[in-house]
């Protein structure tokens, strides 16, 4: 898209709708992945959170990015539970705060907000790259987006690059030995399975690419 892309609150809302659509489609698959190295609820947790988030957005009708982030964060935190609830909750809370009380973001601002969101996941969960968590999809995605923008790419280019990096990061979790989350209890047996949270995070980034700069 043209350099001057701006992401409006409506675009952000469309992002969430799209994300929740794909979560609906992939819920069983996420739960399946969580059965192998966790407790078989990640898909259910995400579906529950998405339903609530969509309702919350409809009710809140946020006017700025901060309001958008708060509305989703509060809802996810109060409905998802588990590890992913506080983590994705922190993600959206930080995204809103970083985005600020503006009704739209440019490409740089969008990536900056996404970066702040991922950093919040990192500080809340204290996981590191390679621990076999959602961060292994999210951190490479942000790095790729920034590189793309630096190389003069559009937001659309950046989000495409981010999606590809997230997918690679997700696949890269398969051989990892889990050091965080339930999967870590399995020790060696966690090797050879894709991390469910990294998978939902890839879907989150991919949905952004499909909606924020389309």
């Amino acid at each position: 898209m043209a350099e001057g892309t701006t992401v409006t609150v409506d675009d952000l809302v469309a992002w969430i709708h799209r994300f929740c659509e794909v979560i609906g489609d992939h819920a069983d698959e996420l739960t399946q992945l969580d059965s192998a190295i966790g407790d078989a609820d990640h898909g259910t947790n995400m579906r529950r959170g998405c339903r609530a988030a969509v309702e919350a957005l409809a009710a809140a009708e946020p006017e700025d990015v901060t309001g958008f982030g708060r509305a989703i964060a509060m809802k996810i935190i109060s409905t998802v539970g588990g590890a992913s609830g506080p983590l994705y909750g922190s993600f959206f809370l930080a995204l809103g705060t970083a985005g600020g009380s503006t009704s739209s973001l440019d490409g740089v601002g969008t990536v900056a907000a996404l970066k702040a969101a991922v950093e919040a996941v990192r500080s809340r969960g204290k996981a590191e790259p390679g621990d076999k968590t959602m961060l292994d999809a999210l951190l490479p995605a942000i790095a790729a987006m920034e590189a793309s923008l630096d190389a003069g790419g559009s937001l659309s280019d950046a989000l495409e690059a981010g999606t590809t990096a997230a997918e690679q990061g997700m696949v890269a979790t398969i051989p990892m030995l889990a050091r965080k989350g339930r999967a870590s209890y399995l020790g060696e047996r966690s090797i050879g399975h894709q991390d469910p949270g990294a998978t939902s995070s890839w879907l989150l980034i991919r949905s952004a690419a499909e909606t924020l700069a389309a």
Partner: protein
Amino acid sequence: MKKLINAAEDVVAEALRGMELAHPELQINHELKVIVRGDAPVAGKVGIVSGGGSGHEPMHGGFVGKGMLDAACPGEVFTSPTPDQMLEATKAVDGGAGVLHIVKNYTGDVLNFEMAAELAAADGVEVEAVVLDDDVAVQDSSFTAGRRGVGATVLAEKICGAAAEAGGDLAQVKELCERVNANGRSMGMALTSCTVPSAGKPTFELGDDEMEIGIGIHGEPGRERRPVASAAEVAKLLVEPILADLPYAEGEKALVFVNSMGGTPLIELYILYNEVAKLLAERGIEIARNLVGPYITSLEMQGASVTMLKLDDEMTGYWDAAVETPALRWGA
């Protein structure tokens, strides 16, 4: 999936309805899913709050009552409850002496209780938290999520509940909880998997001649799969890692807790308890107190866990103190 349920998504809500009808002495907030002791808040008493995913019944809701928990927050099956539930529970039981959160060490539980504590502090409630991590099946390290909180949680809730009832202040009750955790060790095993209602099929597959050693309480596979063995061999597999992790000097006293994962009946628990007692007798460890039954379960999973708590006189006294809850009741 064969279960006595209606819709999978209603399991927790409907079980809470049934619990309320069976135990009118409890206050149950169905909207936020919080189980509160009937006479809460008890003025001047430290409030004890715990919570975690559902599917471990009677823990935690069955331990709400005089001498144990003031409130419990059940999450969805095997999913940590949320900060708003915990905040509601915390406020409901704050008698002015502060509130202790007894948290099992799972990322989800820890993160949600952290958020709840932040919110409670913002509302001016003094909150302390102790994170239980007694499962020796998990190798511990500062780089990992660490050990799981399992059987010792039941003992901590009983002992700390009694201390709070006896007028202990928040710092004392917290220290006692940390002491129970420091002296408690557990190890579990499964003969069968369990089925999370929303998942609809067993979390893992086990052959007719296989068992899992070192499982948690969420239907996770364990550390190791082995051929099924006799109760005597299983007792060894559970007790030896516990003693290797926390050695006992001859004559030291233990509380031994033999727990069913849900689907293993009492007759088998007594057989396992008999084997555990033999192993400890050989080592000169005195079983000063015991608890045998299904208290921290994993849905309908067949299997068992052993928890050993190295007792001192204070813990013993609080263990013996009166308790009056749906699941544990004596001296009352």
